[in-house]
């Protein structure tokens, strides 16, 4: 380890920072005797950067060199940038050095494409293999699958890694063709399908023989860029719900498009990433994953974009006032989950607590329910329904005014920051 590693680290961590997935959850890998590390079901955040994001994995590119020329990517070959490439051993040493000091949960390795997809993938797989076999490392490993890499290499990657991801980036095929003419859809969909199947097979095998090898036990994920192409939120949400169902994905990440190559006329002329939209999409994703919402409930055909003013759960409630008010002391779990201002944990507590006594609004407040919001949508012991006189538009307006102007302000300044924002590197596949 020497200064040159340090220089590379600067370039390649900078290059990795826009990849949004960082969660290290979903895998539990015990420590083999005398090895180092384990992965827990829930990932641990070891630090938080100044932008408030969690640092759980050592997120790094193997190289920012690339033979491709994707319009939305800062590493495209036609950009004039400082380039660097790590050797496999360097990445291994950094990972172990950081891990032993309890800085990280593991490694998240991505890369630009050098020479060919296979050549690149092979090197990435080598890093994971060295970590597992030479260092006895049982911490978390997330590998990007390079689109177009051979199925043998994907297969091997899955043996060493906890999670694999193939980034879809552009939600529809024609638009992908437009922005990344050298890539094609099958190169993305095929490995996704292969990974899905191998995960299922490995799970079945392990039911029969406890010693059967694992395959990406923490599942696979993908990333979509939002706002580089004209797809609607409805298209994006339907796509991601399809990916959850058909490809069995564990996570779909959204990344607000950063106008990095503004000279490229195939891209929209914007000067800041659509952060609020990105956030609304995450909230919708959340509703599907934890609140049992169906994609079709979040957006309808005649309303293809998410309301940027209110979160999608409140939006749903306002569109479906006939389902409310919900009786906190009787309604089933599903309905309680749908009340704006009630989170998953409080919903569970409500279900348990009401077995002991009837709950009133004071109880609810203490359980952490945001009554300012919820009160329009519930009834409980002494709290009469607030509903009758509320017409959705008026209620929305009222709630918006109440939602402390403080929040609005912070969002405003955040957005202002982006007005003259010269973005750096998203690195994407």
């Amino acid at each position, binding site marked *: 380890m020497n200064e040159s590693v340090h220089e590379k*680290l600067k370039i390649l961590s900078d290059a990795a920072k826009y990849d949004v997935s960082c969660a290290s959850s979903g895998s539990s890998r015990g420590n083999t005797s005398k090895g180092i590390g384990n992965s827990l079901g829930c990932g641990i955040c070891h*630090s938080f950067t100044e932008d408030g994001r969690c640092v759980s994995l050592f997120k790094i590119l193997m190289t920012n060199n690339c033979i491709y020329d994707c319009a939305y990517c800062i590493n495209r070959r036609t950009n004039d940038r400082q380039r660097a490439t790590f050797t496999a051993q360097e990445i291994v040493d950094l990972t172990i050095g*950081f891990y032993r000091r309890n800085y990280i949960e593991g490694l998240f390795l991505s890369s630009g494409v050098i020479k060919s997809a296979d050549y690149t993938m092979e090197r990435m797989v080598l890093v994971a293999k060295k970590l597992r076999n030479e260092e006895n490392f049982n911490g978390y490993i997330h590998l990007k699958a390079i689109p177009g890499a051979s199925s043998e290499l994907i297969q091997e990657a899955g043996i060493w890694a906890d999670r694999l991801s193939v980034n879809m980036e552009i939600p529809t095929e024609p638009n992908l063709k437009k922005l990344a003419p050298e890539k094609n859809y099958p190169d993305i969909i095929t490995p996704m399908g292969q990974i899905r199947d191998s995960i299922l097979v490995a799970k079945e095998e392990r039911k029969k023989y406890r010693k059967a090898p694992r395959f990406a036990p923490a599942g696979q994920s993908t990333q979509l860029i939002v706002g580089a192409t004209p797809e609607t939120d409805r298209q994006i949400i339907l796509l991601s719900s399809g990916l959850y169902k058909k490809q069995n994905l564990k996570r779909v990440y959204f990344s607000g498009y950063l106008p990095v190559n503004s000279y490229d006329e195939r891209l929209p002329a914007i000067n800041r990433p659509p952060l609020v939209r990105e956030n609304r999409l995450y909230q919708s994703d959340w509703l599907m994953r934890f609140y049992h919402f169906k994609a079709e409930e979040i957006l309808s055909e005649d309303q293809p974009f998410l309301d940027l003013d209110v979160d999608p759960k409140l939006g749903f409630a306002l569109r479906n006032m006939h389902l409310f008010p919900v009786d906190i002391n009787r309604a089933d779990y599903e309905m309680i989950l749908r009340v704006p201002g009630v989170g998953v944990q409080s919903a569970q*507590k409500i279900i348990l607590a009401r077995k002991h006594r009837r709950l009133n609004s004071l109880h609810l407040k*203490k359980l952490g329910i945001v009554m300012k919001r919820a009160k329009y949508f519930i009834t409980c012991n002494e709290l009469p329904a607030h509903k009758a006189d509320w017409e959705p538009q008026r209620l929305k307006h009222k709630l918006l005014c109440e939602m402390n102007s403080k929040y609005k302000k912070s969002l405003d300044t955040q957005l202002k*920051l982006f007005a003259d924002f010269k973005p750096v590197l998203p690195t994407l596949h």
Partner: protein
Amino acid sequence: MKIYTYDSTFEGFLTCVFDCYSRKDFPVDICSRYGEQRYLFVESIDIATNPQKAERVWKGIQKHLSGKNKQLLFYAYLSEELGIEMKIYRFLRRMFSGHLNLETDYGDPDVLHLTQASQKVKKEAMRMMQFVRFQRTKDRMYFCGIEPKYDVIPLIINHYQKRFTDQRWLIYDLRRNYGILYGNDKVEEVVLTKKQFNAYNGQVKEELLHEGEDFYQKLWRSYFKHITIEERKNLKLQRQHMPRRFWRYLPEKQEAN
């Protein structure tokens, strides 16, 4: 009208519970004998800790609490909140008198309070998993000195023992002045008499650090800096997740030297 005082250990507290039951007494308060005296005209009884009695109460508790709540009362106790003993005591009274699943009666102020206190303690233990940073020393020890708000170091032994089986490590509570040492498959509690580290931030003396240590810290600082998206800065969010009181232990929050 009596108050019970004890040696401020959990065992001592459980012994008080035992004695209250056997004397058929409902105390006004149960509190540490070292704490501030708050009662002038109430008779106080000092209870000597008795492991057998404590054990019997503990077993009784285990029998009544459901799976993931088995540690609820212990965690709540660790919060060291003023008056937590009586809340636990009232809880136990109701539980032992046959109230089923009492721990989910969140509409009851005592239950809710105990739940919240225990969550606070669990959160602090979680933070000890997040923010412990080991420094490698010349004699191949991985050392961390840190100051948790509550006495939670014992709660994280299991985690570290499973994770770092092939390295020697020592996590030291700077305020309570004891630590957990792991080596050769064994964990032991230690008290260091000769402190080779800074008692404020746990920094090991320069000359005792492994030669590569500085460089790794430097690399980590660099990584941390370069992974930040400047334009998305949100210091409030950062502080919310990573309270300031931990910064002094984190190499990434130190100025480069």
